């Protein structure tokens, strides 16, 4: 039990930040992202024995996080995309510096992407290797590269368009 807790703590320390980013990028809401992150790690705890012999534990955790985000609508009546974007604008913390404003802007633009695009781009931004993202998403690396190329352009365009406003 103690051993399990130590392993779990290490996993939590190593992955929690990136999992939070993924959930925040997907939902656009900090509280919901915290809840989804918590749900993800509870599932990780419940299945820790299945992870023991896996080469890359983080891949499994990301997949749980992605599926937890996807099933968010199972329990939560999701808001329409426009409403969601409004919420992001309203709930962003007080902008205290240019840096914060840029991060807030970036999250706002991510929220304008489609669900699967939000998931993929947050993984790319967090520098998860492409082969790992392909395994998480369950698609070939070739397909992933094409898709990511498109999303990168879309996100950059959105960001620059908003910056000009």
């Amino acid at each position: 039990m103690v051993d399990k807790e130590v392993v779990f703590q290490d996993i939590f320390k190593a992955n929690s930040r990136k999992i939070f980013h993924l959930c925040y990028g997907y939902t656009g809401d900090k509280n919901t992202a915290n809840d989804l992150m918590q749900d993800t790690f509870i599932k990780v705890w419940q299945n820790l024995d299945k992870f023991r012999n896996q080469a890359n534990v983080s891949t499994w955790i990301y997949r749980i996080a992605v599926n937890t985000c996807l099933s968010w609508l199972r329990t939560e009546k999701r808001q329409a995309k426009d409403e969601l974007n409004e919420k992001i604008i309203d709930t962003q913390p007080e902008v205290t510096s240019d840096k914060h404003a840029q991060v807030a802007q970036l999250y706002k633009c991510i929220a304008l992407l489609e669900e699967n695009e939000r998931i993929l781009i947050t993984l790319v931004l967090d520098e998860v290797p492409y082969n790992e993202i392909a395994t998480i998403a369950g698609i070939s690396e070739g397909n992933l590269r094409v898709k990511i190329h498109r999303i990168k352009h879309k996100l950059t365009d959105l960001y620059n368009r908003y910056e000009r406003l």
Partner: protein
Amino acid sequence: MKDFDELKSIWSGQQISHQINFEDLKKEIKSRKKAFGNKLLLEVTGMSILSMMLIGIAIYGDFRLWSSQLSILVLLVACLYYIGSQISHFKYIQKDDSFLQKPTEYIVYLKHYKNKRFLFNTTRYLIFSITATIAFTLYLIEFYFFNPIWHSLLALIFEIIWVVFCWKIMKFYREREQQSLTEIIDSLEKLQTQFNSTEEA
């Protein structure tokens, strides 16, 4: 104008962080496990006590017609069905590792799961309502033969109210669940299209 690498550097410099620490997470795991176990235990214990009472009534009750004893048996079957379905659902949840699937497969799973849960819940309610109605009807026979007519009339009125109540509740439940199910399935189909288009890209 910023390029993607600049966006990446904005992202890596972000201070936004989660508000969950490890100790809180451990507490939440323990409390959820306890809450779920308690809920299941409470439901199964309640139904088990009711079943024991029904067995006691069937054995020691002063019934004059076999139909009344049959009514108790029918109710007992309904209780055992409920206990069985709760335990099997609990086992299913314990074994479930669907969230380890690929997202595309997981979305398909979610759609099936939603439909299955809807059917299970409505079927379970229907079976309970029908068995309880059958049990009341069987007991009504003894009421009719061995009680004043106004007792029988009151019992009949109660049964009619019961049937109408079950039908109304069922209708309301079905409509509400169906609407929510349709919304969820629509969203899941949208997601599936997105992920499938990734495959085709």
